[in-house]
């Protein structure tokens, strides 16, 4: 099994665009969309859902108003301001409740119970190039990282089932829990950056994260020609840290057209400047990593 994750630190640099194109070029693989909060990969790969499972999250507190005597001990115990006075009794704000169960410990009236709630859905789907694991978190939920872990696990199972060893993962933006869950245990990380001051500072953070997890890393500079001074700074950063840059994709209006037509850049126009670079990136990944020991 060989797992490649595409991350960025900064949102909007082109992770999904690059992942979709690489998926098309790989032609036979397992895909995973680890951005469970705002997933986009399915919009250009158009997979058919084969199975879906509710993801049961944490158990949120529920207060029985008939048992509550209004002592407010639960309000004092709750560090998330998730319980409020509702007339004479206490009531839980579901959005704020972090399911820690501290309130139940202090309630002397046994008025508090805990109910598991569905906090998302996971999907096993079929794309034109192989099985795809993805999910959608319910809005505002906190179990993002846990659902990402399920998406990753499902991808591994699909890989074994279909005897398809290559797993390509579209990662979420940021560097916290969901990204950590997306990168742990992968064999290669591709950081997609853009030549902007924000792109560079977030590349530095994303790189620090993958370095922390000792993951082999490559960089792709997307929209590379929009700001040459910043592109130079990114190259300098990569050189200073021995991070190979495996492609510099020019800003290309074909990308917008491809997304608008709900397909990968290569399918939109295989001869466009962006497609040529993406092809080159895939060749490097295939020869230098996928087929090497």
């Amino acid at each position, binding site marked *: 099994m060989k797992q490649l994750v595409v991350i960025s*630190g900064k949102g909007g640099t082109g992770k999904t665009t690059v992942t979709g194109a690489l998926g098309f070029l790989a032609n036979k693989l397992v895909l995973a969309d680890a951005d469970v909060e705002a997933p986009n990969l399915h919009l250009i790969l158009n997979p058919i859902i084969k199975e879906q499972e509710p993801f049961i999250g944490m158990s949120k507190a529920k207060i029985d108003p008939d048992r509550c005597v209004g002592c407010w001990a639960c309000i004092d115990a709750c560090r998330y301001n998730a319980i409020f006075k509702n007339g004479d009794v206490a009531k839980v704000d579901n959005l704020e409740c972090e399911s820690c169960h501290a309130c139940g410990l202090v309630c002397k009236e046994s008025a508090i119970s805990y109910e598991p709630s569905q906090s998302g859905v996971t999907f096993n789907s079929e794309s034109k190039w192989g099985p795809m694991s993805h999910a959608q978190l319910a809005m505002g939920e906190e179990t993002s990282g846990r659902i990402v872990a399920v998406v990753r696990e499902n991808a591994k199972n699909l890989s074994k089932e279909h005897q398809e060893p290559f797993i390509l993962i579209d990662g979420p933006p940021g560097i916290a829990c969901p990204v950590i869950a997306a990168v742990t245990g992968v064999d290669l990380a591709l950081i997609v950056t853009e030549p902007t001051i924000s792109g560079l500072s977030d590349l530095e953070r994303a790189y620090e994260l993958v370095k922390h997890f000792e993951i082999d890393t490559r960089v792709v500079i997307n929209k590379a020609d929009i700001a040459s001074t910043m592109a130079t700074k990114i190259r300098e950063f990569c050189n200073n840290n021995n991070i190979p840059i495996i492609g510099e994709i020019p800003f290309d209006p074909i990308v917008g057209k491809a997304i608008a037509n709900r397909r990968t850049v290569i399918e939109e126009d295989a001869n466009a400047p962006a497609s040529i670079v993406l092809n080159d990136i895939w060749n490097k990944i295939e020869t230098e990593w996928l087929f090497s020991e």
Partner: protein
Amino acid sequence: MKIAVASGKGGTGKTAVAVSLAAVASTKSCCLIDCDVEAPNAAHFLRKDITETKTATVPIPKIDYNFCNFCGACGQICQFNAIAVLLKEVIVLDKLCHSCGACSIACPVPGALTEVPKEIGLIRVGNSNFGNIKVIDGLLNIGEPIATQLINQVKETNQNSDVTIIDCPPGAACPVIESIKGSDYVILVTEPTPFGAHDLSLALELTSVLRIPRAVVINKDDPNTDQEEIESLCRKNNAPIVLRIPFKREFAQKYAVGELFIYQDLELRSDMLTMLENIESEIQKAKGVVD
């Protein structure tokens, strides 16, 4: 007034809009809070110096083996699997700890379990290059999984300003809710692409739960693109489109080097000021109704 700038999708232009709003509002006392503690960027555009840096900490359990009798109560109550009680050892997995304090309540032996601070990141306060803007941001330590606690602490650092602009992180989970909470208004920034529309619909769902009035800004606007999906979403959700920022390569180039391209464009600046004034009067009207 407090205005949050959010999106759902990353890279739509939240920071560009937030810093420009702060620049436009800076005739009054203004505070820009960057709640994207995983990948903060607002300071690149606005902050000229850092006047204060604080370490942010959260409490995590610490076991005193002089008192602990390994009863296991702390491990049993922890919903986050952050405590493992063995025969003669208690393992605290601090990265899983949510600092809820339940273990402290559950421990029956005085002195056996106390809470000690663990560093999770930094909070930085500074002044802007121009205008009367305080710029506050947070930087989560690499490897720390939870952003929400730091976001909460960054917001609490807020000075009392006439206008507070909150630059929110991308996504649709807890960190976004934490950033937006307490705001008088939310501006959702989107882009006219299927990704933008898809994620705008998630952001509209997310913000409707909070019952805070919202409006939509379309960034990188291109009249040649099909906008029907976004326009229909905004109509259905009663979220007016209040500003369209055209896609221009020169805007991207200025943004790339940390320049306030919206503020520098006189027409856009004027449109943004009008948008701000309209939001202010809407907030005042809503407060009037409540009072």
